[in-house]
């Protein structure tokens, strides 16, 4: 069984977001990490490796430094890492990104593709389903549980007020929720091997059956008209009352002033 896991390197927002003096996001000051939903997807794939001896390939698209998350994945137990990087692929929206990744995947054999539900920088949840669409395979998004049964995969799919147990014939694509599992740590031996492991690097020329018109910034149907850091309304009053009674008096006063009570 062959599993491809698509992962993304994202800035870490945990433990505080850093801002520049002018109020813009200081991306350079934040650590780059493997996107949490993707890591859960990787863990799901590694469990299939433990159970069925699946071969796990991790694939990422990004700047050359995105190779770091591939090495992390290798240190966790993935077998092979592929980095798709090329200047002409930069600035891609979800359409152009999914077109690129599908073009890379067409070079590979697979039974299952796993992506995270969404990345914490863009939060779109679009790339996974769009890759499946480009490849003409079924997609099951928001997976909470994944089981393999012969040539079929059985997935618990979460909705707002219910879940479905879905069965799909492979090949198929699944998008993973971070609730799916607790990803394992890298092993010391794995880290040692990963440092020197070969990472396959592909550029535009290695993508199969894709049109230049659908790649990069120019090939993105959506265009950014304006981007800014969110202006928040800012802090109001803060009081440190001496006693709980004073605290309550303060709150009641405000509720009364605003005609809530």
């Amino acid at each position, binding site marked *: 069984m062959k599993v491809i896991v698509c992962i993304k390197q994202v800035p870490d927002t945990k433990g505080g977001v850093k801002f520049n003096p002018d109020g813009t996001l200081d991306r350079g000051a934040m650590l780059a990490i493997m996107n949490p939903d993707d890591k859960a997807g990787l863990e799901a794939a590694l469990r299939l490796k433990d159970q069925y001896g699946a071969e796990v390939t991790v694939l990422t698209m990004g700047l050359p430094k995105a190779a770091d998350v591939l090495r992390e994945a290798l240190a966790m137990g993935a077998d092979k890492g592929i980095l798709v990087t090329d200047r002409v692929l930069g600035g891609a929206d979800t359409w152009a990104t999914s077109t690129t990744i599908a073009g890379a995947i067409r070079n590979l054999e697979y039974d299952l593709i796993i992506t995270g539900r969404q990345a914490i920088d863009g*939060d779109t949840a679009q790339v996974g389903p769009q890759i499946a669409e480009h490849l003409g395979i079924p997609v099951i998004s928001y997976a909470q549980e994944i089981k393999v049964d012969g040539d079929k995969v059985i997935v618990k799919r979460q*909705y707002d007020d219910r879940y479905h147990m879905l069965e799909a014939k492979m090949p198929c694509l699944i998008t993973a929720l971070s609730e799916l599992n607790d990803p394992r740590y890298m092993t010391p031996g794995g880290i040692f091997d990963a440092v020197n492991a070969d990472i396959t690097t592909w550029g535009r020329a290695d993508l199969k059956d894709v049109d230049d018109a659908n790649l990069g910034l120019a090939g993105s149907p959506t265009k950014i008209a304006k981007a800014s850091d969110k202006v928040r309304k800012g802090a109001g009053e*803060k009081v440190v009352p001496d006693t709980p009674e004073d605290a309550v008096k303060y709150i009641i006063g405000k509720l009364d002033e*605003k005609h809530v009570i």
Partner: protein
Amino acid sequence: MQNIEEYKGVFVFAQQVDNEVSGIAYELLGKARDLAEPLNAQVTAVLIGSGVKGLCDKLAEYGADRVIVVDDPELKEYRTEPYAHALSSVINEYKPEIMLVGATAIGRDLGPTVSARVATGLTADCTVLNIGDFPLQPIPGKEDEQKHNQLLMTRPAFGGNTIATIACPNNRPQMATVRPGVMQKIEPKKGAKAEIIEYNPGFTPNNRYVEIKEVVKAVSDVKDIMDAKILVSGGRGVGSPENFKILEELAAAIGGQVSCSRAVVDSGWKPKEMQVGQTGKTVRPNVYFAIGISGAIQHVAGMEESDIIIAINKDEDAPIFDVADYGVVGDLNKIVPELTKQILAAKEAKGA
């Protein structure tokens, strides 16, 4: 290449579950009416399901001029493939200028699949939609390249830290998923009627149809926190699931409902449907009590539009105080029960 001039009208995916129209469908219709006005366009609801024709009048009351119904037994429960086939066939046949889909667990699956199939852009989780120019300002010397009457889609990214306005100038339809709880529905017009078109593109199961083995509905009598006027929201600082009792008592006294942060859901203290925030629900009540909630950016993104935010936290440096209108530093275990007592007393005094 598409002839984008052929694409007309504002379309809304009228999500239904168990043959009941989801609230988001009415919200999208309300927004679609706003967008249709400057475009001088019709508002069309696309209703997909099995045995759903009876829902058309409701959609008319909430602002649909026209309803396109795709009714087929294959469409009984939501599945990506037959629904994506239904919606993309409607788009290819009726050519909307704008296609809005709710950013629900269904819409965030359907939207990307359909946008890839009809080869257009999709902007996720929008919170503001306008009609305007792209680029926003004309480029000197290239004034005639500025496009007018474009859908401008604004969305938060980076867990709510940044905000971007996005256009889709060269492809149609201009597609967006829209965050539930943000757009306003219109006051329903009793007795309003819409033009009804029945359309069936035909459904032939292929490799992309997955099989539903089981449907398990969450048994819940909890009212939707998105409808609450007052929310009493608890975080990890509440300490234990049992201690939520003091929040429930406060909510009962003030006529509100209890909600919570992600940490509380992750700890298994409260169900997911009570979660406020980026991965939970967006709420905008009149009053939001943030009790023992530190105020991670992902939480704030889901509640910062509340009219009044009152925070109670023992940590003076908690980021929740950066967004609270009224912040109280202190012990919630002492303040909350006392607050409940005083509110009940105040109510009694007013009633007497």
